């Protein structure tokens, strides 16, 4: 029997994977994909509890998150293209102009 606990644990695993991916990967594309993992961890949680409580609000919120994630992906890909044009690389640590 799959309980809410299982979902929460899966979502925690996904969240952890995402955070680690964002923080340690140098490739901007991978970082973006890791971000998607974080989003989806949140989504999984939302849908699981929506099902458990029989309240559709959670699912609606999930749809919103997906939409926003798409927008975020578009912006992120745009940034990648800009970075490639500027530095001819997708390595994030190359873009360090903000260092004081």
């Amino acid at each position, binding site marked *: 029997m799959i309980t809410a606990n299982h979902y929460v644990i899966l979502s925690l695993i996904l969240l952890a994977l995402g955070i680690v991916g964002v923080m340690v990967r140098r490739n901007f594309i991978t970082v973006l994909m890791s971000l998607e993992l974080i989003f989806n961890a949140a989504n999984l949680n939302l849908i699981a509890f929506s099902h458990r409580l029989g309240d559709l609000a959670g699912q609606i919120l999930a749809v919103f998150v997906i939409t926003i994630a798409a927008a975020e992906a578009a912006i992120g890909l745009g940034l990648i293209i800009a970075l490639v044009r500027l530095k001819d690389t997708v390595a994030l640590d190359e873009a360090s102009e903000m260092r*004081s």
Partner: protein
Amino acid sequence: MPFLDLVWLVPLFPLLGAAFNGLVSNRRGLPKSVTTTTALLGSGLAWLWGWAAVIQWALTEDRHQAYVVTVFEWITGGSVRILDGSLADVNINASFQIDPLSSVMVGFVTFVGFLIHVYSIGYMHSESDRAYARYFSFLNLFMFSMLVLVLGSNLPVLFVGWEGVGLCSYLLIGFYFEKDWCASAGKKAFIVNRIGDFGFLLAIFAAFAVFGSLEFTTIFPAAAAHPERYAAAATVIGLLLFVGAIGKSAQLPLYVWLPDAMAGPTPVSALIHAATMVTAGVYMVVRCNVIYRISPTAMLTVAVIGGLTAIFAATIGLVQNDIKKVLAYSTVSQLGYMFLGAGVGAFIAAIFHVVTHAFFKACLFLGSGSVIHACGGEQDMRKMGGLKRHMPTTYWTFLVATIAIAGIFPFAGFFSKDEILAKAFAAGFTNLNGFGTVYALLWVLALAGAVLTAFYMFRLVYMTFHGDFRGGHEAEHHLHESPWTMTMPLQVLGVLSIVGGFLGFPGQLFGRPELNRIEQFMEPVILPIGHTPHGAEHAAHHVPLSLELGLILLSLAVAGFGIWMAFRFYSGARAFERPRRLAERFPLAYKLLLNKYWVDELYDATVISGTAKLANLLWEADARVVDGAVNGTRHLTVGTSFLSGIFDLRVVDGAVNLVARAYDVASVAFRRLQVGFTQGYAMVMVFGAAILLVVFLVSF
């Protein structure tokens, strides 16, 4: 035939010629042949078209009606209230008019002007291409201005031409501007003219204020219809107009520019003295004859100035040694006769004298140009003599013109001068306007002037053409007759000096008034005044026939006496002896005349040095007060700017820098956070979220 309706082409042709020669030939330095063709086209077409228009007008139009051709609306300025309280439209057209007076003027101006153009080709051939183009450009412009002047149908258009001839005389008199005295002579002509023009301009304003219009066809009939109402205004307008005429036509006291105008090339002198410029004043007075006839004061002024100038200039001419100076003073004197004619009511005779004078004075000037050309630029008659053998054509034409100006029957000058003298006598005899004594006195002066004219002109001929050459062997070697372009105009003008007088044959003396062509033709110009029936005014000033014939004999005798004197003084083996003795006997009188009554010096000492002093004073005031104020302001500005600069630098910049410094110091700690590494920021975010989570959990 479109000649009449396109009469504006008459001034346009020379204007185009002037524009081409001035803007293209002169700048590009085109060859002389191109310049010559353009200039001759400009003046020649004006001549042909002008004559065609006049002939068409004479054949098809009513002689008593001026034919006005409007080219465009020039000045439109709404309506203003004039002196009599009514509203008048300011509406001035650029329009031309053909009437007997302007057709006579166009007739001889274009013709004589064209001849002078032809003559100039020979005279100016040694100039550089560019100077040659400049010369012909100015010459054409002169023709244009004079044609606008005589064709204009209202005072402003006349004024445009009036200023135009003033400008052109300046340009041409100062043609050799690299010589200082030529440039000064040009300036002198222009400035003296401007003094007169000032009066003219005031007259235009006054005329508008009185009549509410400036069209000749409006103001003159209006003035003629109500002579009493406009008499006072006519005095003002007439005198102001005459101030303009005094300047333009070189009368006392503004004649001083004309003798100096000799600085220009000789054909220019001929143009100024014969066809254009100086005749403008006479033309204008005759054009405005109605104004003068209803104002006895203005008319008397004209006569007095004219009569005095006639004798005054003639006396100076007696002793001058520069061939062109003699001719210049003779022009001033002859212009005096013309104004005397106008002043005694003989307006047509004045114009008649303008025409005959144009013939013989152009001939004399061109002849003197030919002489100067032959003598290599020498103008002093004391270094000439005996030129008759070397240049026969010049001699004979010159002699003919001299006889004409002396007034010997049947040459041109006899008829016109005699008519003026007769009218002056008649004015005294019939007590015209109650000033009979003055007019009689003027007649005596004019008669004395006629003796002097005959004397100084024949003196000139004897000194130049008779006796032996006094200029040395070297110069004698170079003596030569001028080329045909120079002698041809001389011959044409010489013939006209002989026959030109028959235009105004005094047929009325023999009961055949129709023989006096010019009088018959121009009679519509003299509008009847008030309700006097036509011709009554004329009849009133008549003297008995026997007296008139006596007058003619008298003036002939007077001219003959002058010639005889000249012959005695300057001819034969003992030439020059008598005048020298006379000069030694009366040194003061001789010096007075030789130095031209010291009028130039007088003007120098009074008007010119006064003006110079005033200018100096103003300059000093300018330098001290105005410049001082400006400089003071500058110093003040510099001082305040300096202070303001210090304030800016210390206070304002200091405050700004202080704020920046404060932030700089305050941000030392926070600057460390900016690692510039994307994932570093992400790490901070995650730890922050973790801390929040811990806080959240602990607080429950």
